[in-house]
C-alpha cells in the first residue's frame, strides 16, 4: 500500500488505465458473442477474458500485486478450498449409495422364478 503522495499520484494513472482496459475487454467480450462462435470456443474465450479482467481488478484495484504474506496465505487457502468446492459435486457421478449393486435385472428375476417352480 502506498503512503507517499507521489506514489499515490502515479497509482492514479494506473487505476485509470486499468479502468479503460476493463471497458475495452468488456467490449471484446460482447463482440466475441456477436461472432457466434461454437459453444466450447465461446465458453473458453469468455472465461479467459473474464479471468484477465478479474486478475486486473484483484491485482491493481485490490492491491494484490503488493500485499502482505498473511493475505496471500489466506487467499491461497481460499483458492484451494474453492477448487475442492467446484469439483466436489463431480463425486456424485461415481456415487452408488442407495443402488442395489447385485440386484437382479428383470430377465434374471423371471428366470429365477421359473427355476424355483
Amino acid at each position: 500500500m502506498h503512503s507517499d503522495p507521489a506514489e499515490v499520484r502515479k497509482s492514479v494513472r494506473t487505476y485509470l488505465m486499468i479502468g479503460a482496459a476493463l471497458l475495452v475487454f468488456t467490449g471484446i467480450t460482447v463482440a466475441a458473442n456477436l461472432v457466434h462462435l461454437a459453444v466450447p470456443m465461446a465458453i473458453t474465450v469468455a472465461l479467459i477474458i473474464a479471468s484477465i479482467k478479474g486478475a486486473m481488478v484483484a491485482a491493481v484495484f485490490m492491491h494484490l500485486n503488493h500485499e502482505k504474506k498473511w493475505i496471500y496465505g489466506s487467499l491461497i487457502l481460499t483458492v484451494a478450498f474453492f477448487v475442492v468446492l467446484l469439483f466436489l459435486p463431480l463425486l456424485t457421478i461415481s456415487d452408488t449409495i442407495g443402488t442395489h449393486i447385485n440386484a437382479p435385472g428383470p430377465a434374471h428375476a423371471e428366470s429365477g422364478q421359473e427355476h424355483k417352480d
Partner: protein
Amino acid sequence: MNIPYTVETRPDTGLANGKLGIWLFLASEVMLFGALFSTYIILRIGAVEWPHGELSVWLGAINTVILISSSVTMVMAWASLKLNEWSKHRLYLILTFVLAGVFLVNKYFEYAEHLALGEGPWASTFLAIYFTLTGLHGLHIVGGMVVMAYFIGPGAKMAKTSPEQFTNRIEYTGLYWHFVDLVWIFLFPVLYLL
C-alpha cells in the same frame, strides 16, 4: 479504551486488524459464490438443453460498464483521501453510490420484464439459478450502498477526528466493492453470453 491496531499495524501480521478482517470476510464470500457457481456448473452439465439468448446482452453489458466505472471511482475516492483532497473524495464516493443505484435500477427493469412475461425463478432451471445468483449479487450491492451512505453521511465525521482510520475504512469498503465488481465480471459472461 481504544481498540488496538485500527491504524498502526500489528507486529506479527504486519497488517491493521481491519485489513485482515475484510480479507477473511472476502474469503468466506468466495466460498458462498463458489458454491453457487458450482451449482450452476452441475445444473448446466446435467441439462438436456440450456436456453440461449433469454437475457438482454446489452443490458448486462451496460451494467458491467457501470460496475467497472464504480470500481474506478471507488479506488479514486480512496486515493483522494491519501492525497488529502477531501472534496474530490466526497465526489468520487457519491459517484460510486450513484452508479451502484443505477445498476440496481437497471436490474429492477430487467427483473420486471421477466416477471411480467411469467419468467420467474419457478419457470425453469436456468431462471432459478439466474435469479439466485443475480439476486444474491444485488443484495451485496445494497450492502455496499448502505456502507457508502454511512461514510457519505454520519460516518464522515471520523475524517476529522481520526483521518488515518477513516482512510483505512474507505480502503476496506473499496476492497469489498471491488470484490462485488469481480463477481459480476464472471456472472456477466456465464449468465448472459454462454
